[in-house]
């Protein structure tokens, strides 16, 4: 598995994932710089992503939707914050109301920082994702854009069983 380390910070609701890829940072960067590659990696197999607008520059926007098994669509956008090709970039990831991609102010935003460092084997990538609040976490899970077997309902069950 390329994942080498993970860390959770409960107080700041941050998930940090470190991974090693057998390709140089310039190549990993292309995965994000090319919308056709980005859509292949962004959504889980059950909710493939389609990237609509793509401007990976500071202040730029990337818009996308994910299509669920029943054909339901979840609209999302990135507001790109910092870009230092091919070393790092950060963006806010939020939900949009519809295909016009106007941000949905009722749904939470998360901020993700991606860092790519050259190593002998290729690239060490670090993804640091922070969610605004516990509600934000829950809402992201409620969207059903999940991988694996667990679901928001299971989480609530676990909560009330605790």
């Amino acid at each position: 598995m390329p994942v080498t380390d993970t860390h959770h910070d409960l107080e700041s609701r941050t998930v940090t994932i470190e991974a090693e890829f057998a390709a140089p940072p310039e190549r990993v960067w292309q995965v994000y710089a090319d919308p056709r590659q980005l859509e292949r990696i962004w959504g889980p197999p059950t909710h493939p992503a389609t990237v609509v607008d793509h401007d990976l520059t500071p202040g730029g926007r990337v818009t996308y939707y994910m299509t669920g098994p029943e054909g339901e669509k979840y609209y999302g956008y990135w507001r790109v914050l910092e870009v230092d090709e091919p070393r790092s970039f950060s963006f806010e990831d939020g939900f949009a109301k519809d295909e016009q991609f106007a941000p949905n102010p009722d749904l939470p935003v998360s901020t993700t920082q991606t860092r790519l460092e050259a190593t002998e084997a290729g690239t060490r990538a670090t993804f640091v994702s922070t969610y605004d609040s516990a509600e934000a976490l829950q809402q992201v899970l409620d969207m059903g854009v999940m991988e694996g077997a667990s679901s928001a309902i299971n989480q609530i069950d676990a909560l009330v069983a605790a």
Partner: protein
Amino acid sequence: MGVTEEDEDRADAWFHALSDRTRRDILRRVLAGEHSVSALAAEYDMSFAAVQKHVAVLERAGLLVKRRRGREALASGDVDSVRSVREMLTDLEGVWRGRVARIDDLLREDKD
């Protein structure tokens, strides 16, 4: 297992409780060890009554339990409930692990 109205109400209370910075701070303190409500109140630049209210919100959400010792109210965190935030982060970690695996697959195609 189905989710009852009561379960939903409890989840609502729980997320409401954690949406406030002061309450998260109080929770962090009481998870580290039992505190009297007056000792907690001394930590914040707000009235005793305001801190008491925050404690009550956490208590109603089931994140904090209180007991009395003489005239003092002692508060401690309910560790089992808080563990659920960890579970949510673990789920989100799953999302990121999925992305990492897909990047890895995509990069491997270059070599084929």
